[in-house]
């Protein structure tokens, strides 16, 4: 076996593969098994070394706070104890009362925030998808000025949400440009349905170009031949869009819509700055939880945060399960086995070179 031993530095994965191709060697199986386990273990050790710092940091900044929130949501608030009449200095254990509270009289604010969040998500993501797809189709067809369009389209994305909220508050000012353009005096940033409209317009402005970009990337990988074939078969422009473009762009669009949905569900900056805190017409779940926490009511705040988390998780799972959105983007198991096959071939080639 000495003649096919590879130098130590190169024996990274599956060098034993070459050994079992040589007939008449003593104990080929034993040698194979030993080297392969060692190689896999080495790769595993290395991966552990490289991945664990990230996992450690994420455990500290995401997992640990989540567990804390779960525990905290079982406690009430400091304050006057109704039984003894004394001021409590510790938070009393209340069990699930913070959760069951949303079905009681105090639940109105929660359900209002819940419906606001859902309404904003459905309407903004719907409009963004329509506008984004339209933008992508225009950009895909345009040849001159494409660089300009692409640079322009990144501007709303780069503007900080907080700044865009201030900008739109200025636009929607009672003496601002929006009222001047439509010729009506609407107090956009006061309570009422118009406040919702203002938030939706500002949100759609900032995020529709993002969907446009992702869909454009999806459009650019569709081969031209597919359209040519369809044209020869006499498909109309609308037919081409409906039967070719849309199905082929679906994976890219699905991921974009999923990201936008999850982002819209945690909306905070925009309504907070554009309209203000504790405004019924625009209060989202994030705003409700943050407001409760800043008023030192950590128990209810944590319960709302946990419920929002579960809501987001549910929507994400629905996307992945029902619609089959591929997040990781390596095509799943087929991609992996292809990678393994490729590596096996390179391992074989390497063994030949060194032999």
């Amino acid at each position, binding site marked *: 076996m000495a003649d096919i031993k590879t130098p130590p*530095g*190169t024996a990274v994965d599956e060098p034993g593969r070459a050994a079992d191709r040589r007939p008449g060697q003593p104990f080929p199986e034993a040698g194979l098994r030993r080297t392969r386990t060692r190689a896999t273990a080495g*790769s595993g050790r290395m*991966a552990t070394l*490289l*991945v664990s*710092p*990230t996992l450690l*940091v*994420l455990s500290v*900044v*995401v997992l640990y*706070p989540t567990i*804390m*929130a779960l525990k*905290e949501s079982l406690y009430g608030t400091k304050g006057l104890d109704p039984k003894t009449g004394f001021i409590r200095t510790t938070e009393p254990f209340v069990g699930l009362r913070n959760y069951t509270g949303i079905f009681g009289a105090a639940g109105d604010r929660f359900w209002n925030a819940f419906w606001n969040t859902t309404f904003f998500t459905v309407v903004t993501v719907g409009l963004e998808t329509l506008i984004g797809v339209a*933008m992508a189709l*225009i950009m895909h067809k345009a040849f001159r000025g494409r660089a300009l*369009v*692409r640079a322009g*389209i*990144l*501007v*709303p994305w*780069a*503007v*900080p*949400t*907080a*700044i865009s*909220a201030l*900008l739109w508050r200025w*636009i929607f000012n009672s003496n601002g440009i929006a009222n001047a353009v439509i010729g009506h005096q609407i107090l956009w940033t006061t309570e009422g349905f118009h406040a919702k409209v203002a938030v939706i317009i500002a949100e759609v402005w900032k995020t529709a170009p993002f969907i446009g*970009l992702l869909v*454009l*990337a999806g459009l650019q990988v569709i081969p031209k031949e597919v359209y040519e074939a369809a044209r020869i078969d006499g498909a109309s422009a609308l037919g081409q869009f409906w039967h070719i473009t849309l199905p082929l762009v679906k994976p*890219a669009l699905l991921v974009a819509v999923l*990201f936008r949905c*999850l*982002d819209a*569900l*945690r909306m*905070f*900056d925009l309504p907070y700055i554009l309209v203000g805190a504790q405004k019924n017409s625009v209060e989202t779940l*994030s705003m409700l*939880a943050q407001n409760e*926490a*800043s008023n030192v009511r*950590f128990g209810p705040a*944590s319960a709302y*945060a946990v419920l929002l*988390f579960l809501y*987001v998780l549910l929507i994400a799972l629905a996307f992945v399960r029902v619609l089959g959105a591929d997040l*990781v*983007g*390596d095509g*799943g198991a087929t991609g*992996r086995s292809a990678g393994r096959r*490729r590596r096996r071939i*390179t391992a074989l080639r390497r063994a030949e070179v060194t032999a």
Partner: protein
Amino acid sequence: MTITAKWRGRLLYVGVAAVVAYCLAPFYWMLVSSLRRTSDIFDTSLLPSTVSFENYRAVFSPSQGFTRALLNSLIVAGITTALALLLATFTAYAMARLEFRFKRLILTLIIATSMFPVVSIVVPLLKLFTDIGWINTYQSMIVPSMSFALPLAVWNLTTFFRQMPDELEHAAMIDGCTRGQAFRKIIIPLAAPGIFTTAIITFIAAWNEFLIALSMTNKPAMQTAPVAISKFSGATQFETPFGSQMAAGVLVTIPLVVMVLLFQRRIVAGLTAGAAK
């Protein structure tokens, strides 16, 4: 060229113009408003009647503390980006290049955390940081920011590393490099554009963060720029200083817009990397 084709071409230009106008008009309005005088701030003309830098001077008046806020933003976003990139480069390399158990599960989990509602970690961390006296410190903003910056960086870098051919690294290892040396001498220099793009995207995300910065500070001296601008005070309590808010908004956004214009091709590649598969 037939007449219909000509009309179609013209229609396309109208479409392109509409897209550009949609994206830039509100931003242009911010720029124009910031250049007006306080006396004609409510003008609706498309160009300022008199160009004035009065608002910009107001932004830098010591009472607003804007310079300090910019510095705070730079520190928080800079350290967050540096830390996230350092950790993410190693992890993304393992994700793209090594085979190990639970790889797909781990990558899915990391990506999933980036979509986590920030408020769900802000609420418990606010209580914790209040207890240990971390309110109004940089670390109280940097640590929670890692929750979205790190997954973002891992995901972007993994896609970049995957696009690089395996063969280069193998060739280096055949020539006697260890995996570590191949990583340092071959992968890192070749991946530099990808790492740079990831740095820009992560920095923009950290720079634009609002909820964490708002919750973790209550002293004006520790606020980041977005929080400080949203709390700008006017001459009286009931007067919103729109002019100086727009000027500050322009100042905060211009560096990002310049970066975006310079590196738009790379940023688009980075943003769409996952989706175009």
